[in-house]
């Protein structure tokens, strides 16, 4: 893919949306993360927050410090300064997430397998052999939208969303796969349970960062037994 140039639209009174092309590319999340860092670094006091997601950056700015036209120039400049293509060998950190697939933890593993015309073991293999990329963080704190799902595993959302999905549930919705950081309602197909804390609201008190992954990072799921998962869950509760 060629280096995408940003196109701008107004989002609100103090935010613009910079759109970098209209399709996903594996270089894009990492590239956008770099552009975001650069903007926050270079324009302190002018650019307040930058929210990356898939192909866009939402740029919150201080309208009293800069005119809209000049702001667009700044974003173009920062985008030009970040190299493309990205060298993918060292793009983002790789985080391994232990998952117990199927059973009570993943009631829809059978559904996903049935529609893919595969065995459950094959689904687990296809799902765990891929390095996913964090394309966006949002919806809830630490909720990581992962791209890279094998197309055979694409499964529509449940017709009736669950009232309560347990925290740590690994799900598939359409071409997306993600782990629910918190318990809550949701319509994703649950295929397993992950042992990992996705959001730490008190980074000052613990050794782990606020979120284990950021946009551009990579995730790989490692199948583990129910015993191992339970042990890991107990261990993380004690911390």
């Amino acid at each position, binding site marked *: 893919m060629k280096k995408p140039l940003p196109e701008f639209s107004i989002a*609100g009174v*103090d935010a613009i949306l910079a759109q970098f092309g209209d399709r996903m590319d594996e270089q894009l999340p990492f590239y956008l993360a770099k552009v975001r860092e650069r903007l926050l670094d270079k324009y302190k006091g002018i650019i307040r927050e930058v*929210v990356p997601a898939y192909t866009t950056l*939402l740029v*919150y700015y201080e309208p009293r410090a800069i005119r809209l036209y000049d702001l667009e120039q700044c974003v173009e400049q920062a985008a030009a300064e970040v190299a493309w293509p990205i060298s993918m060998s060292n793009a983002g950190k790789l985080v391994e997430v232990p998952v117990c697939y199927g059973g009570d933890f993943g009631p829809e593993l059978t559904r996903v397998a049935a529609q893919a015309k595969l065995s459950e073991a094959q689904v687990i293999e296809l799902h765990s052999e891929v390095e996913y990329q964090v394309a*966006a963080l949002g919806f809830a704190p630490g909720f990581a939208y992962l791209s890279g799902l094998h197309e055979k595993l694409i499964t529509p959302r449940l017709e009736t969303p669950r009232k309560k999905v347990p925290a740590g549930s690994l799900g598939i919705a359409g071409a997306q796969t993600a782990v629910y950081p918190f318990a809550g309602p949701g319509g994703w197909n649950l295929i397993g349970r992950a042992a990992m804390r996705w959001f730490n*609201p008190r980074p000052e008190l613990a050794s782990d960062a606020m979120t284990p992954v950021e946009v551009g990072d990579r995730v790989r799921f490692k199948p583990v037994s129910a015993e191992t998962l339970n042990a890991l869950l107990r261990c993380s509760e004690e911390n």
Partner: protein
Amino acid sequence: MKTGLLVIKPGIHAVVQDQGRNGYQHLGVTPGGPADAMAANWANRLLGNAPGTALIEITAGGTEFECQTQSMISITGGDLNLTLNGKPQIPWRSFWVRQGDRLKFGYPRHGFRAYVSVQGGFQLPQTLGSCATVLRDGLGGLHGDGERLRKHDFLPCAHLTEEGIARQIPELYLPDYNAPLSLQLIPGYQQHQFSKASWQTLWDNEYELLPESDSMGARLSGPALSIPEGNLLSEGVCYGAVQVPGNGQPIVLLQQRQTLGGYPKLGAILPLSGYELAQRAPGTKVRFQPINITNAQQQMRRYLRFFGL
């Protein structure tokens, strides 16, 4: 001995708020903050508090406090039939409260949300730099768990030795929450993907505020807008963004919005319109009116300068 306000009755929905949790939207953390930031700013200004000082937001009323301190207190926002020791009080002013005084909010007379601040603010724990309560994320609040105020909760604040000067807000500045409300919309986001007919429908009709609304989003109901075809990837949503899901009914995203949204958006309303919207009870009819970005920024500039923000 600790001094502060004791919650006798929590009412329908009383929470603590401050300026909000800024700088974490890229991790999925919503900013939060008061639904009517204008009224919250007035509450602090009446007491000489810094903007963004922690205060209480009361939605729809029913909340009662006992003062276990003496302090200057301010009440702004909606008129929720407040009484002090049984005597009716009008909002938009500051006054002196003593040990044992009872502050009781009834049900809304005008407006929908009231703000209570004390001189020097409440001393509350912060999560990610803010005490703003966000129920969905389990962040902020008196106990740091995102919960609303409960019976027997105690909100610590200073004990003043000397009575301050009672102030009230000049009538000129008092908002009229019963006036018809036009939401000033800055067209943006996917504005060009909506048909001319959809825009005409939006400008020409009234939309009713639904009871399912909250400080995450105001859900409106009226003539349906036809939405652009195609699948949109989720993207960052700013305050006031008006998204239109499959049923064609607009949702205005407010302080506690999700950080990302995947529905097509018409643009965003002026924050000042959003603050007014927060004071309308479900069932209120509103309209949309276009405003260009220059005028919108000018209005916000005036507001921010006024409150020293």
